[in-house]
């Protein structure tokens, strides 16, 4: 009786049931060890994001309309008015890095809404039952938001170049631009995923998203230099990662004086803090 364990006959019937060599579906993959897990998960999430973009580019195009209008109307008008001290460059050039940063930020802020949607659809739960630590899942999602923002940023850079903004084509500097966009998007997507973990519903998050994007945008140096702001707004700008991103983009794309060391330092710290906060709240979304 004891020898009649239920496992015995399966190997024989395997070929009959599935027809092919099923050995692969019988052997669990070897777990990736320690530090190699995180980059693998980040890569997986970024791949998914790029695959989705490839299937449906509508969002990419519709989201290009607004920055194009900003540059076209706001940029050209204020270039003629010369009301804002830009340090000698045309205003449209001055604001272009700000608009690039803005469009990347909008994408990233949208990410919290996406994660709630994925929770509602059961997709998040399924991912949480894979060998992916919560911090790795959030890091993966955040960098996926970074990749998506970067694609959007490239579109806006091309629009700006078409409108005659004198941008650098130095590949090293462009690499720096990419890094700044990704780091900032990691932060903004984690900010919205953190709020998602607090409010837990899409409708409320929509409200929050709208309530924070405008202050973040206008409370930064995206449209005007910090020096023309009232004191309280300068304080906002000082703690606003968007300002550091714009400063870095301006320095790299236009060659204006900037503080690249501080900019990248602040963006990296903000990204790390964002990942920590969002990871610790992810459990609430799973319940």
């Amino acid at each position: 009786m004891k020898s009649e364990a239920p496992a015995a006959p399966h190997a024989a019937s395997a070929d009959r049931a599935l027809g092919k060599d099923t050995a692969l579906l019988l052997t669990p993959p070897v777990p990736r060890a320690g530090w190699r897990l995180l980059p693998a998960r980040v890569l997986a999430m970024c791949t998914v994001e790029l695959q989705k973009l490839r299937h449906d580019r509508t969002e990419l195009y519709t989201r290009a309309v607004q920055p194009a209008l900003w540059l076209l109307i706001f940029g050209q008008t204020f270039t003629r008015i010369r009301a804002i001290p830009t340090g000698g460059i045309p205003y449209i050039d001055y604001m272009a890095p700000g608009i690039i940063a803005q469009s990347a930020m909008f994408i990233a802020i949208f990410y919290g809404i996406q994660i709630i949607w994925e929770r509602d659809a059961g997709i998040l739960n399924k991912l949480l039952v894979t060998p992916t630590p919560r911090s790795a899942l959030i890091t993966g999602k955040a960098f996926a938001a970074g990749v998506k923002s970067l694609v959007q940023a490239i579109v806006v850079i091309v629009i700006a170049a078409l409108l005659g903004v004198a941008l650098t084509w130095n590949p090293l500097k462009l690499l720096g631009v990419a890094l700044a966009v990704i780091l900032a998007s990691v932060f903004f997507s984690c900010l919205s995923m953190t709020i998602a973990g607090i409010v837990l519903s899409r409708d409320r998050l929509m409200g929050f998203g709208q309530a924070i994007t405008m202050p973040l945008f206008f409370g930064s140096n995206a449209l005007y230099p910090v020096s023309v702001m009232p004191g309280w707004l300068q304080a906002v700008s000082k703690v606003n990662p968007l300002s550091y991103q714009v400063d870095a983009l301006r320095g790299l794309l236009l060659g204006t004086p900037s503080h690249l060391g501080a900019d990248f330092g602040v963006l990296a710290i903000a990204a790390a803090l964002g990942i920590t906060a969002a990871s610790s709240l992810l459990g609430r979304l799973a319940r």
Partner: protein
Amino acid sequence: MTTDPADMSATPAAAATATAEAAAAHAEAVSCTGLTYAFGETKAVDDLDLGVREGEVFGLLGPNGAGKTTAIRCITTLLPVPAGMVRVFGHDAAKERMGVRRMLGYVPQQLSADGGLTGRENVALFARVFDVPRRERAARVDLALSAVDLSDAAGRLASTYSGGMIRRLELAQALVSAPRLLILDEPTIGLDPIARTGVWEHINAVREATGMTVLVTTHYMDEADQYCDRVGLMHRGRIRALGTPEELRQGLAERKGTDTLPTLEDVFRDIAGSGLDDNTGGGFREVRSTRRTARRVG
């Protein structure tokens, strides 16, 4: 509280299979002891004892709101439980989360494929997050897709799939990592009879091929009768009856003293509709649980 679940079936038929039970007792795929989980005031799972044997198809049955999904979410590490309550192949779900997750394939109650990706990309994602090495990824993904008959549709976006196809796609997602335990939460809910049969046929074929353990919940008693080796009837957070479908039906026949063998549905009514109940009715709960995410606030 009984520790040996066989006691609960309370039929002579159970005694007849006692020897077989002793043989199988060595390997428990899932064991819950005193599992309790509450959402605020609601005790969704209340002191649940459950043992799923290696290699069997175990059906967890019960009315809406019985706590099936909650129990499953505890087993899958989605809900935090204290150490010692849930073990999967001997690994504690509280202490060895990663280890437990590596052995699981999980299909949740909702249809949950990503409509923005193709069928193949949906499966490939799960191959990636289960650390399938790149050189065998394509082969594994194709194998999983062909195991559920989706090879032809693999290149299409999942948003174009029918409900039955999405369920089979989810099955492929769960299979690509070669799990030892497949957990399916109402795999046939909302499917037409043909699609239901299709899903079950694939579950059976895969199980036959791989010998994996299957833990499944369903509302359809005919399915449980036909496809499950053993079933547990759950009501208000606890297992109220447990055994093979045959045993449960025999047991009811003897208690009622009838000659004709009752169906599993009769057993279900007997338990879910018995004096235990101040039945709040399935309707509201069903609506509530499908809309839960929309309503759940704070």
